[in-house]
């Protein structure tokens, strides 16, 4: 085969994937940026260039600020908790215990289930009066509470679902990393008299740092990307208490059809995620030991 034929062959192999990526990832990304600087076309009014008007509107939009705040609380409430739980579960099912295969499967199940199905199950748990949670609290004589219908508890109720779902997923990564560790490290430490807690703090945890970084970046992205549970369980309510960024973008774009403003919101979300990911790598990279 000549050089140019080889070159052609290579490109032909790459073409299907490249076309799909360009069509559904790169083009929409660039188009979104472009649209965020133009007005939304309506009826006979064609789209015009409006500069940063969409971004100016965003600054004055109280619901945008509320969804951003909600999202930050959501991230703070779910990420550390789900990562800690994932680590604890992984350490537990990595040990020599009876029925550990079953436990591993049980922890991973939430990840396998379709999100909509999961949301519906939890919807039943949270249902006022005859939901599972109500029946349990009722049995103890506690007052009735509408978990998803009350401003104070709706976001927290969503967080519980997310932690339940994410912890099992992250556990798999921790479990994989733990199984890579040589059991002789623990034996060497045992001979030196290190307690299990000391070994965990000085050896296990540092050796899990690459996994923690990976999981953390994913957790942040997931926290800002969550939309399915909101759609099924609360639709952003009550009174915007569970309005998260991506759901707000969805509402603006596909319920109010203000595509230009939705494009501007999307750019802000992308920028936010990019900056957070960069910061994480930058701060943690120095603390991470890659083998």
């Amino acid at each position, binding site marked *: 085969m000549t050089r140019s034929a080889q070159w052609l062959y290579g490109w032909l192999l790459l073409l299907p994937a490249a076309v799909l990526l360009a069509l559904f990832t790169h083009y929409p990304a660039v188009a979104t940026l472009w649209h965020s600087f133009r007005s939304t076309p309506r009826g006979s009014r064609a789209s015009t260039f409006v500069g940063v008007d969409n971004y100016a509107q965003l600054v004055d939009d109280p619901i945008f600020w509320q969804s951003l705040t909600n999202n930050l609380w959501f991230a703070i409430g779910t990420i550390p908790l789900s990562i800690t739980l994932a680590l604890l579960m992984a350490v537990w099912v990595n040990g020599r215990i009876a029925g550990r295969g079953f436990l591993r499967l049980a922890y991973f199940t939430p990840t396998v289930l379709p999100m909509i199905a999961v949301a519906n199950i939890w919807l039943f748990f949270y249902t006022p009066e005859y939901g599972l949670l109500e029946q349990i609290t009722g049995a103890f004589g506690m007052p009735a509470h509408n978990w998803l219908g009350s401003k104070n508890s709706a976001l927290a109720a969503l967080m519980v679902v997310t932690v339940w779902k994410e912890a099992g997923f992250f556990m798999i990564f921790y479990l994989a990393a733990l199984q890579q560790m040589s059991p002789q490290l623990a*034996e*060497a430490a*045992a*001979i*030196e*008299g*290190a307690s299990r807690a000391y070994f965990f703090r*000085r050896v296990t945890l*540092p050796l899990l740092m690459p996994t923690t970084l990976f999981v953390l970046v994913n957790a942040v992205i997931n926290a800002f990307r969550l939309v399915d549970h909101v759609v099924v369980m609360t639709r952003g309510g009550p009174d915007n208490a569970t309005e998260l960024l991506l759901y707000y973008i969805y509402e603006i774009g596909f319920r109010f059809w203000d595509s230009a403003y939705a494009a501007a919101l999307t750019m802000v979300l992308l920028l936010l995620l990019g900056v957070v990911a960069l910061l994480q790598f930058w701060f943690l990279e120095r603390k991470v030991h890659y083998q």
Partner: protein
Amino acid sequence: MSAIAVENVSKHWTTTSGQVRAVDSVSFALDPGTLNVLLGPSGCGKSTTLRLIAGLDHADTGRIWIDGREVTHLAPARRKISMVFQSYALFPHLSVQENIVFGLRVRKTGHADRDRRLKRVSELLGLSALLDRKPGQLSGGQQQRVALGRALIAEAPVCLMDEPLSNLDAQLRQEMRLEIRNLQRQLGITMVYVTHDQVEAMSMADRVILLSCGRIEQNGTPADLYETPANIFVARFIGTPPMNLLRLDKAGSEAVIAGTAGPGVAPLAWAGGMLGVRPEHVLLARDGPFTARVESVEYLGADSLLLCRIGEQILTTRVAGRVGVTGGDSVHLSWARGASHFFDAATGIRLATEPIHQTATMFA
């Protein structure tokens, strides 16, 4: 008082195919300040025995003493031992220095004491220039030294080593063998050293305990194992190439090598047994009493191995330098009376303990 005593220790593993006796009623006692090698083929229970002494595994039955103190049920950290693992088990995220002082930090040894001991150990092992490196930046030999350093800095009276040199190349292995032996003597440590390499065992040990299938085949000095192997297994395991073992048959009033007409090599009572003779003790001699046909010649440089057919059996002889015989030639062989070993064919146990020291010097 012995530094380590193991009494009737057994350890079973339960596998899918039933119970496996990894260590089967093993007993021995080791003197303080000696280097003791647990030797044997893979799966013979030598590593398990070491792990039982370390406390990483627990014996099903039997008792273990270290320094006169019973430790059978003590945690590894309370047995006053240090250990070097086959994989080195260095902490990959910690520097060489932190790896070495890991145990001192655990035990909260004082700052000054820690620095003094680190300095001593790193100078002893030539690690002073590498203290800030990570294990991943070191060669295999350097990693081995760090593992050694972590064991030595504990200043424990007993040091356990689990095939510490098996990941090194031949050249380095020879250097480290000498170095470990010197360190052990210099520091007066009691060492238990596990290996499957008989050269390591023979060259380093004060005492060799040869194991097979979880049982002790022989426990003695390297010379004991070489000169008076207790059974056929030991005879075959020690020495390269291994001892020749020839079936005996009766001819007239004597036992002869099966398939030959003579001469007689043993009394008639041993006719059903086995004759053992080491290849290096067999001589080519014009007037030798045994006639054999050369099957093949293997030239090794310093010496040559001759595979000879005697009767219907094969006997290997080792001759210095190059020899002028080739396959098909007829040769005459002889060996000193004391070079013969006799074993019971059924049990494999040594029949007579003829001292071969006097004759062995002839070949040295």
